[in-house]
């Protein structure tokens, strides 16, 4: 289940980034209805080397399979590393070279 789609493209020194995380984002209410445990992403961080470029602490109200778009200053060829954690304690790290 744990997969991420990452796109990062450089233009004029600004990296446009789009991430999609495959996640059910089960809210507490939906979980009660379905009789399962609530589970949603609680923390996302993106880094280039040691530098933090994006950091998000979301709640249960992000959409299912959330798509996040953001921009930051950077260079071509650097490696963008994205990490997320969810309520069940799952932790996923994936990286992608900036195009």
């Amino acid at each position, binding site marked *: 289940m744990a997969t991420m789609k990452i796109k990062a493209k450089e233009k004029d020194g*600004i990296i446009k980034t789009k991430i999609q995380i495959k996640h059910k*984002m089960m*809210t*507490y*209410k*939906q979980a009660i209805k379905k009789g399962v445990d609530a589970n949603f992403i*609680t*923390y996302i*961080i993106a880094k280039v080397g040691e*530098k*933090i*470029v*994006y*950091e*998000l*602490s*979301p*709640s*249960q*109200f*992000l*959409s*299912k399979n*959330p*798509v*996040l*778009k*953001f*921009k*930051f*200053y950077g260079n071509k060829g650097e490696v963008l590393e994205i990490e997320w954690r969810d309520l069940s304690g799952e932790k996923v790290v994936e990286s992608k070279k900036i195009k």
Partner: protein
Amino acid sequence: MNRRKFLTLSVATAMVLPLGAWATDYRTLKPTAWTAKKVDDAVKALYGDVELIESSDLVVKAPKVATGAVPITIQTSIQAKSVSLFQDVNPESAVATWTVPEDGIVDYRLKIKLRQTENPAVVSVVVEGRDGKFYTAHTVVTVAGATCEG
């Protein structure tokens, strides 16, 4: 430790901590903010008793009428420390908090779940500026049709 010493110490620690913290996980840092039922309470739990300034430099975009997940765009030229997103129709108010890195660009897009209600949903954004002031902006979304319920 007498009371005065304790107070000075705690103030000193409170001032040092935010600077020392590189990565800020607001969920563990401010757990009460995420269970608050009202926007005002959530803002209070997250930032304390602060004065919010309505700002035109802060842009919150959302469709007027939305079905399904609601796309939200947040853009600002304000030098921000953190950005928070709230809404008033789901059971809890807080949606997300970004920690903005230094020289970070605030141009965030994401989709959120909003419950369908009779009154349109008010989506508010609070920006904690690097100048220590707090800015806010709102937008109104009418949720039509079945979306993922909160």
